């Protein structure tokens, strides 16, 4: 009887209950994130070989001087920058259009733009690989043919490879970012526009002085996830090139490099080192980014 009351006391205790409720998250975080990160950092100083794992100091970090690694780093950064430049204004404008009361068939357009986000990257990658085939009969070359352009070898030349990748990114993610902006737009009170138009502001002025500033929180969010998404890009390049094999590494990204080291060449130590470097880069970039736009560490007086 007494024992039960202890259990009961414990269960009904106001102090313990919160911890019980957050336990699932804490456990998941500890097992699948914290442990992995610690283990990755450890492994980055080891030569990982089953039972014969040994510490080898900074040996794995020599990868920093490897030409292919630097190229993949450059690729990831380039991809991130360009996608951020593309993936903020375009969805914003589309969202503004879809939000306008003059727009017709909003639901249809919204669905059409959003559907690509629901397809799997793997399927999209395969379809894009076929669409951007190099023979005359491939979809893109037929389109080019309408403009009188000779068939293009899309997936083996740096410039066209990047066009393909950006096209794929644009096709797939515009809908998602547009949704964020739509929800952001719907939170802007209508009376602001009303008073602006009474004051004689044009549509462009309304966009410039009301819409864009008030969308700032959404933009910060979209920018943050775009940076993550861009830096973490892997599946697109993996599928487009039939298994991480882009010619001359034109589209090998940091994660692609990590995958190649760890899972194709059995160099888990080096792969972990790449992971650590990757973590530091993304962390730094996002800290700077959040700092600049004032989300963290900002002036208290605001």
């Amino acid at each position, binding site marked *: 009887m007494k024992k039960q009351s202890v259990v009961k006391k414990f269960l009904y205790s106001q102090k313990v209950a919160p911890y019980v409720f957050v336990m699932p998250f804490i456990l998941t975080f500890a097992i699948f994130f914290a442990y992995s990160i610690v283990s990755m950092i450890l492994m980055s100083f080891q030569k990982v070989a*089953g*039972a014969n794992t040994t510490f080898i100091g900074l040996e794995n970090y020599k990868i920093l001087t490897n030409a*292919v690694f630097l190229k993949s780093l450059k690729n990831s950064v380039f991809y991130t920058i360009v996608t951020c430049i593309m993936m903020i204004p375009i969805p914003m404008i589309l969202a503004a259009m879809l939000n306008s009361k003059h727009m017709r068939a909003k639901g249809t357009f919204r669905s059409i733009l959003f559907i690509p986000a629901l397809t799997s990257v793997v399927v999209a990658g395969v379809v894009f690989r076929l669409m951007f*085939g190099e023979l005359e009969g491939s979809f893109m070359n037929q389109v080019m043919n309408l403009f009188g352009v000779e068939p293009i070898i899309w997936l083996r030349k740096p410039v066209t490879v990047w066009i393909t990748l950006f096209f794929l990114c644009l096709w797939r993610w515009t809908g998602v970012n547009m949704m964020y902006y739509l929800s952001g737009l719907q939170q802007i009170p209508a009376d602001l526009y009303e008073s602006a138009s009474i004051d004689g502001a044009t549509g462009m002025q309304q966009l410039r002085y009301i819409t864009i500033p008030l969308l700032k929180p959404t933009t910060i969010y979209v920018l943050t996830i775009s940076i993550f998404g861009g830096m973490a890009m892997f599946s697109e390049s993996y599928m487009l090139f039939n298994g991480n*094999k882009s*010619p001359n590494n034109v589209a090998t990204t940091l994660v692609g490099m990590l995958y190649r080291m760890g899972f*194709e060449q*059995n*160099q888990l130590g080096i792969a972990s080192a790449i992971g650590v470097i990757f973590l530091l880069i993304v962390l730094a970039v996002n800290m700077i980014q959040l700092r600049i736009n004032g989300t963290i560490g900002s002036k208290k007086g605001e």
Partner: protein
Amino acid sequence: MKKKLLAGALATAMALGMSFGVGATDDGSTQGTNTFVDGGTELSFWTFQELHVGFWTSMADVWNEQNPDRPINLTVTTGESHSTHSKLLIACQSGEGAPDMADIEIGYYGSFLKDGYLLPINDAVEPYKDDVVMSRVSMYGDNEGNYYGVDFHLGATVAYYNMDIMNEAGVDPADIVTWDDYVEAGKTVLEKTGKPMCAVETSDLFFPQCMMLEKNAQYVDDEGNPNLVTEEHAEVIDYIREMINLGVCEIAPGGGFHTEEWYGHLNDGGVASVIMPLWYMGRFTDYCADLNGKMAIYPIPVWNEGDVREVLQGGTGTSVIKGTENEQLAKDFLAFAKLSKEGCTYEWNELGFDPIRTELWDDPEITDNKDNKFLAYFTTNPFDVLKANGTDITAPNISGAYSATYSTLVSTTYSNAFEISVDQDAMELLQGEQDSIIY
């Protein structure tokens, strides 16, 4: 009420599905088994090629017939190549969940070999030693004379000529002996038909590797270190570049000989010849129906008249994974399946793999079998090439850094050499490539 019931039912179904692991084959893997016998030892097997499942399960049945005292219940699991290899690697690394045996593609083999995940199979191979081309076994070995794997096929490289194009150009492939002859013939073909003589891959290495093996040059040295910067390699690259400049050689559409674009191009008669191993016959019968009865197989050209006109390329080594509880049984079964007459006959008949066992080359039941789809497809007999060249044939050295080197070769080296930096000095280019290899 109804809705609630439905929701409840769905939730239960989901929970049940999850708890019983329904959808275990979501990753697209499939399984096959032999006819299980009572008291058979269970062996698990992983492969990355659907066609191999039939081979292994049939061989297990034959084994059970011949060895009733040591029966096997074999379960073969297959999946997409990359993911199967990485799963296998991770299983080996963690020491848990690995199968008893596995097929490992040649490009990945080095990764498994260098960290000692495989068992030596010398004793099991020993009884077959004199009947087979041993370089196909010893290549899956180390410096200490241990063998770890056996291939499915000999993988002798030959020249496939499109006789429609050759006849139109008035060139007889039988007259082509050296690479210089080949290039001369290529010029004639180009002039008469406007088509290139051959193609080179930028995403694989068969053509340059063939030329290098003929010069006895390897991508890794005897200690297993990357060895790209060699005179021979530079000569091969310059030679192919020259062929491309002349228009005799093209970059394979799609970048490789296993792409949709390339198969279409080949099937349409877009190229006069292909230099590939004999196992490539299966690609012709599968993807190039229009070329049926038009392709002829001849020995590959060589650098100097009198050289052996054959090298071994490509392949898949089957190995026993360390940690299996049935070492001896797995090893014996492996050697039996791959090296016995029954095994080699199956491989030739069903898979089109040129047999590693030499007695089959002289067996009229095999070599003159009119019903064999491969012999029926080609106008010349591939066994003539095998018989002419004997058994002392150079195989690629795949030890040590080969996996890492291979990865660099097929992702950067050849696309740089033949498509992107065509003007860069070959030696300088190779030095840059070698420096980027992580080993």
